[in-house]
């Protein structure tokens, strides 16, 4: 009899534990309220409440980005707002933010890679910023930065310190030795010229590979680099990641003849040995084993240091329908979970102050997001090393990544296809699979209406 009672009691204890575990484990439901509502200005924290703490999350980026942000944060002096900086590794950054969003653990202020902002807005996790910034303040930002942060009802949800630049880094001496013409914005390489250049540069005794395509960023897919770095090739061939008229299908766009031609050419670069599909190290270009490097602004300082006066920054080639390059970069937003959005906006404004933007772009070589900073920077002026980035965008070569909440799926599908094609898979089959994945996701989410 006693035994039975104890069994019952034991079961009861277990059940209570289970029940409490259940409650603890139930994911916080996503906010279902429309996110586009302007947040009514709340009274700022009364001084008597003491200082508020703003949690700030950011990706620990490449180059000197992290050190630069640390430097910026150390300049923060407001005693009423304490900053709690949390740095997360870039590789899985988006997944970590998503997990936090699902768990209701988002910080006040965080950064995210370019087009991921639309999915967060769709999910209701970000609040509009335009209530905190005046028109005059926003007028100083590059149009591409404003465009990147604008979604749903034309409201602004994110602002970045910089825009990105994607072009081809080269060693001048190698080009001259291989007899390769140095392209200009007015007369960029054609596709044929570029392929011939790769062949000639691969044949140089100094090089192991003609070009570093930074496949070390993407040992496995999904990887944002592959989408950012190589969707401009698709677009220059006349293809794209998704039909931008409707944002409802990718059929015929991502797997049409132009897309197949583009990806077949890239596969050829790996198969002919012009590029290493399984690069493990980051130093192919800086060590001189690669003649070219197809990579963004963030390598600028490393390249300047390693290559010195021999360094060139060349514009993207024209593969048929005009040269194209990537644009958009990491940008900041304030979450709907934030209890002190005014304080967070203050911090964001501080991060976007000209002096702080300059600290960042000096470190990472990106295009400063504020026109005043950008015009004062000699590196971007005509004749400056990084002028190519600006000239490309001014020439209208920049193509924003798809402006849709489906972006996370699009980039996962495309970069997986790219990774497999680089490893030798059938181009048409892989692109078809990517299209199927994108369409299934669009359908499952009711086209993100």
């Amino acid at each position, binding site marked *: 009899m006693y035994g039975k009672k*104890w069994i019952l009691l034991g079961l009861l204890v277990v059940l209570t534990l289970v029940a409490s575990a259940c409650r603890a484990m139930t994911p916080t439901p996503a*906010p279902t309220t429309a996110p586009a509502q302007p947040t009514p200005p709340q009274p700022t924290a009364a001084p008597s409440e003491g200082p508020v703490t703003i949690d700030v999350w950011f990706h620990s980026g490449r180059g000197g980005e992290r050190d630069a942000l640390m430097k910026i944060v150390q300049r923060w002096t407001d005693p009423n707002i304490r900053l709690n900086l949390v740095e997360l590794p870039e590789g899985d950054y988006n997944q970590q933010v998503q997990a936090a*969003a699902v768990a209701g653990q988002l910080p006040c202020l965080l950064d995210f890679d370019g087009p991921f902002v639309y999915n967060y807005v769709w999910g209701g996790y970000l609040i509009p910023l335009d209530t905190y910034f005046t028109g005059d303040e926003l007028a100083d930002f590059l149009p591409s930065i404003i465009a990147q942060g604008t979604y749903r009802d034309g409201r602004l949800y994110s602002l970045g310190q910089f825009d990105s630049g994607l072009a081809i880094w080269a060693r001048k001496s190698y080009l001259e030795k291989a007899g390769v013409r140095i392209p200009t914005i007015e007369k960029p390489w054609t596709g044929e010229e570029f392929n011939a250049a790769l062949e000639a540069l691969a044949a140089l005794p100094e090089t192991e590979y003609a070009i570093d395509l930074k496949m070390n960023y993407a040992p496995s897919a999904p990887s944002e680099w592959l989408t950012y770095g190589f969707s401009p090739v698709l677009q220059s061939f006349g293809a794209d990641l998704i039909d931008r008229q409707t944002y409802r299908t990718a059929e015929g766009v991502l797997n049409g003849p132009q897309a197949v031609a583009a990806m077949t050419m890239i596969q050829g670069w790996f198969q002919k040995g012009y590029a290493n599909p*399984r690069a493990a190290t980051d130093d192919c270009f800086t060590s001189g084993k690669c003649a070219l490097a197809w990579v963004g602004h963030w390598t600028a300082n490393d390249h300047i240091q390693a290559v010195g006066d021999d360094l060139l920054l060349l514009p993207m080639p024209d593969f048929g329908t005009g040269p194209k390059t990537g644009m958009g970069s990491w940008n900041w937003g304030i979450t709907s979970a934030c209890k002190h959005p005014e304080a967070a906006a203050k911090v964001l404004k501080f991060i976007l102050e000209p002096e702080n933007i300059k600290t960042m772009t000096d470190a990472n070589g990106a295009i400063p997001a504020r026109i005043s900073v950008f015009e004062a920077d000699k590196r971007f002026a005509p004749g400056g090393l990084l002028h190519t980035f600006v000239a490309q965008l001014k020439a209208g070569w920049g193509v924003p990544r798809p402006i849709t909440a489906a972006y996370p799926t699009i980039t996962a599908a495309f970069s997986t296809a790219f990774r497999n094609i680089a490893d030798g898979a059938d181009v048409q089959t892989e692109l078809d699979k990517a299209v199927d994945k994108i369409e299934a996701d669009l359908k499952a989410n009711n086209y993100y209406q």
Partner: protein
Amino acid sequence: MIEKTGQRWRLRFRTEGLKETLMAWLMLAPAAIGLTIFLIVPFLMAFQLSLTDTRLLSPNPPQFVGLENYRQLLRIHVIWMEPLKDPATGEVQRDEQGQVLYPRPRTILRSDPRYEGLSELAQVHLFGQRFLLAAGDPTFWRGLLNNFYFALVVVPVQSAFALLLAVLVNQKIRGVHLFRALYFMPVVVPMVVVAVIWFFLYNPGVGTINAFLKAVSLGRLGPFNWLGDPRLAFPSIMLLSIWQGVGFQMVIFLAGLQEIPGELYEAAEVDGCNELQKFFYVTLPQLRNTTIFVVVATTILAFQLFTQVHVMTGGGPGEATMTTILHAVREGRYQLRAGYASAITVVFFLIVLAVSIVQRALMREERAIE
């Protein structure tokens, strides 16, 4: 008087019984609570999730969809492929080698609304006809197949290798402890670290393995693209998994070896057994229970294959190293389809459970022979 004593005795017995039951529950509690919180409850929650279309981050509330996730996961159609015909003559089209030409599978699947949501899994030739196997989720089947392939190769090879190592380090020679420690070391290193190190070892450009092969073959072998070649990638993963896990089995075998009474070997010697006969007729039979444990444990570990492929290949190239768990994580974490990913894990749990039950049944039989 007698009655009283009896009562007292019964009372004492009762309190002792109570104490024992209490102790038993106390001893059981940590495991029971842990299993309940971390195994049973999550499984029930996964089952519940698998009946909905729950998506992470979505502003749309989850809907109950019944068995729809399971239907998509397990759906397989066999479709007869009609050869391409010349529209003018009605003749079957052939390529230069005289092979019959067929339409692309995707064209077939997109032509009929009944096939919506299906993708190509494989094409099979049967009785001179070609059939298209189309599945709702070809990746799942590929992952499952890989799991079985991995278990089928790794379990026997790793167990045999572990036994060999155990016999070697069971010798009574000097410095044998050093070898034991060395062979066991990879087990102590977390799999993520092992995976990252081997990722560099396998690199076609700067990797040590290619450099070694090149050196010993005087430049004739390699360079091999270990993780990038669909034929080599999965065997490469198996090799490192065996290397990492073998030390654990070795230690268990070693314990088994040291349990074997020396008299048995002496008796065998008296009977005129040579070393090989001693191994096959004394060592192996004596190790049977140990072997059973090693095989069952290795099988379960083999089905859990995730870390190596997640870190090193992400399931690629193509789907050469895809596994079921990796697929579930991808669907849940990258595609944010929590409901569907849960359905995968529930099905996979049932499959692994079935494998374990079959194994147990087979091993019980062995015991019955004894």
